[in-house]
């Protein structure tokens, strides 16, 4: 295949008519793309990065990862059982968020907490029933295992919910209606059930496209450098732009394939609502794909060995896409310096667009700002690759 291609080029020569040159150039490019496609199809590990890994990641994240605590194991200690304490115990049991276990005493509860069998301890003290009628009210002691700060905060929130339910119930039992001075009405927009899956799965698409665009491309192209086939290609009349395009187009198609698979799974398997415009999702994805391909090509051009390219791709593309993109960790809560670093991570703009397009719809200010940033990054990475590749020939 490659052989006949270069023969063809040699015979066409330089002084050909412009029209003819355009034709050969297109043919050369087509040949390169075909060669690259065959290579992808032949190597099982490329296909598995593009399709098996995304499927595994989506299933793991879709099913395995949840930030929502449900049925939190709680050790309940009632020092002096009475009708008041049992009504509180019932409201804990009825809450979908707690799975309370009655414990003998504080000591047993503490052991359960340390052993990880309980995430929180609730203690209703001996004088609970009596102090309920005192003006200051009775304390309900809640001890949360603070090791995982996030879970601890969420448990605290749920506990407040259960407590408020109990207050209402208690007032009803007394023939009254609970009238707290101020009551809070909460509206969670875009994600009314506050499902963490709705938030994680769209962001995951950015991770998967980073894997294909940057890691896979960096590995494959650096293998060509390592084996010297890249240099062999460069001595042919094929232009550098054509070589790069020949690399770009097949992996671009592969990446968009991974993105289509992910979007379909997000909507149909994980029931994440999609409220934006599909055309805009496609447009933003194209921009992000170009930026991450540019990054992958740049890494491979600079590293030129598979080991180093793989490592660098993991460090500068994959891990930042994971940690610094807003995929799991909230950017605005990071220290200022780290927030500033996130601005040079392409995934940041894509994750933000994905979350908005899926859950909120097409919000132009966000889509446009992110697209502009992605455009700029794609231009920078591809431009740098073009320059670096050129220089290395001299």
């Amino acid at each position, binding site marked *: 295949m490659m052989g006949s291609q270069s023969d063809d080029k040699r015979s066409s020569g330089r002084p050909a008519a412009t029209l003819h040159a355009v034709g050969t150039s297109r043919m050369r490019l087509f040949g390169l793309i075909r060669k690259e496609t065959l290579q992808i199809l032949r190597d099982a590990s490329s296909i598995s990065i593009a399709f098996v890994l995304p499927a595994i990641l989506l299933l793991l994240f879709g099913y395995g990862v949840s930030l929502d*605590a449900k049925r939190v194991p709680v050790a309940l200690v009632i020092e002096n059982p009475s009708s008041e304490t049992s009504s509180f115990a019932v409201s804990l049991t009825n809450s979908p968020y707690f799975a309370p276990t009655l414990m003998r005493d504080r000591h047993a509860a503490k052991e359960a907490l340390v052993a990880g069998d309980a995430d929180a301890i609730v203690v209703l003290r001996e004088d609970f029933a009596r102090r309920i009628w005192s003006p200051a009210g009775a304390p309900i002691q809640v001890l949360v295992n*603070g090791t995982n700060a*996030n879970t601890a905060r969420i448990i605290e929130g749920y506990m407040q919910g259960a*407590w408020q339910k109990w207050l209402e119930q208690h007032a009803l039992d007394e023939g009254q209606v609970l009238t707290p001075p*101020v009551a809070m*009405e909460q509206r969670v927009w875009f994600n009314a059930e506050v499902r963490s899956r709705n938030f994680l799965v769209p962001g995951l698409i950015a991770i998967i496209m980073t894997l294909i665009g940057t890691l896979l491309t960096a590995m494959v192209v650096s293998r060509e450098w390592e084996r010297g086939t890249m240099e062999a290609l460069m001595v042919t009349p094929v232009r550098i732009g054509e070589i790069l395009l020949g690399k770009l187009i097949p992996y671009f198609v592969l990446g968009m394939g991974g993105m289509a698979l992910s979007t379909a799974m997000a909507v149909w398997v994980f029931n994440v609502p999609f409220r934006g415009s599909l055309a805009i999702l496609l447009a933003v994805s194209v921009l992000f794909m170009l930026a991450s391909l540019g990054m992958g090509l740049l890494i491979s051009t600079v590293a030129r060995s*598979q080991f180093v390219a793989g490592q660098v791709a993991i460090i500068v593309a994959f891990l930042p896409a994971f940690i610094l993109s807003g995929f799991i960790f909230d950017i605005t809560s990071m220290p200022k310096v780290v927030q500033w670093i996130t601005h040079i991570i392409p995934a940041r703009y894509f994750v933000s667009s994905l979350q908005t397009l899926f859950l909120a719809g097409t919000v132009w200010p966000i889509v446009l700002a992110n697209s502009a940033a992605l455009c700029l990054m794609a231009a920078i990475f591809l431009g740098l690759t073009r320059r670096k590749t050129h220089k290395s020939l001299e």
Partner: protein
Amino acid sequence: MWSRVRALIAKEFLAVWQDKKSRVVIVVPPLIQLLVFGYAATFDVNHVATAIYNEDSGLAARELVARFEGSPSFQTVAYLSREAEIRDVIDAKQARLVIHIGQTFTRDLKADRTARIQLIVDGRESNTALIILGYANRIIADFNDEWLRAHGEALPPARLVVRSWFNPNLESQWFIVPGIVALLTLVVTTVVTALTVAREREVGTFEQLLVTPFRPSEILIGKSVPALVIGVAEGTVIITVAVFWFQVPLRGDLLLLYAGLFLYVLAVIGVGLMISSICRTQQQAILGAFLFVVPAVILSGFATPIANMPPLIQDLTLINPMRYFLVVVRGTFLEGLPTELVYERLWPMAAIAAITLTGAGWMFRHRLG
């Protein structure tokens, strides 16, 4: 026999340490990751961008708003004057929370009717949304308490007194940084071991090694010891940084922590060598390492609790060495975990190590055929 194995160990050390690139890859990225992760990987929510839409000019409404503004958790970014603006600021992510106080707020409050305050939260980031609501709830509960007290009314019959153990200020750094000890040790050890055999197979020196009088068990020791030293050293550096730079308290027994680290690294070496002996090329080995590391991290409880996973996936985590070491490392750092509970986490890691190392030794020879 021992002098032979010693020579093999020395050779393996040189293979990793002599090459400048691989030396850099082992030392520099983990340190950078530790620093960036340590600061970036946080579930803490602070300075939540808040917009206030207060239609009530009464004193009580202003006082409540002042409480939100005085809290370090919230940061006012806008004052709204029309209802339509709520959608604009939330959609464009200018604010994550809009506090809406209606015209009758103060009037209701004074008339002993429940005054309503509406909170609109951006649910795109579900976890943050939950935490924001929790913070807001607390501010309102405090406000209620003080209002009742100031007006001589009865307080609610019971109140929550919440305290958190082991990490009283709920700093997520205390949770994440010990986790990074497990994470980075896993990444470095897997990459180092996954590439050793694959690299030699690619070059062909592994076949040469197999025809020497070395037994597979000796080759196994030769390949494992350098990785063990590197893994434990890496762990030590990260533990040191965690204690002295991030100031995470180390309350438990250091000896037990090291027993855990030792077995953990051995288990990971076993997996890495198994990957390496299956693969024919380095690219496959890196891919294999990736296919192991990513699920191992996700299903370990590093960022999200195992208890939140569906039962089937929870069972799957039982074969994950990182799951056990995370408990050991977090336990020794924060809780001062009782000895018998640490032992409970040690033997599964020892079992995983025994199985994977034996498997790898067996595959050294049988991959050839």
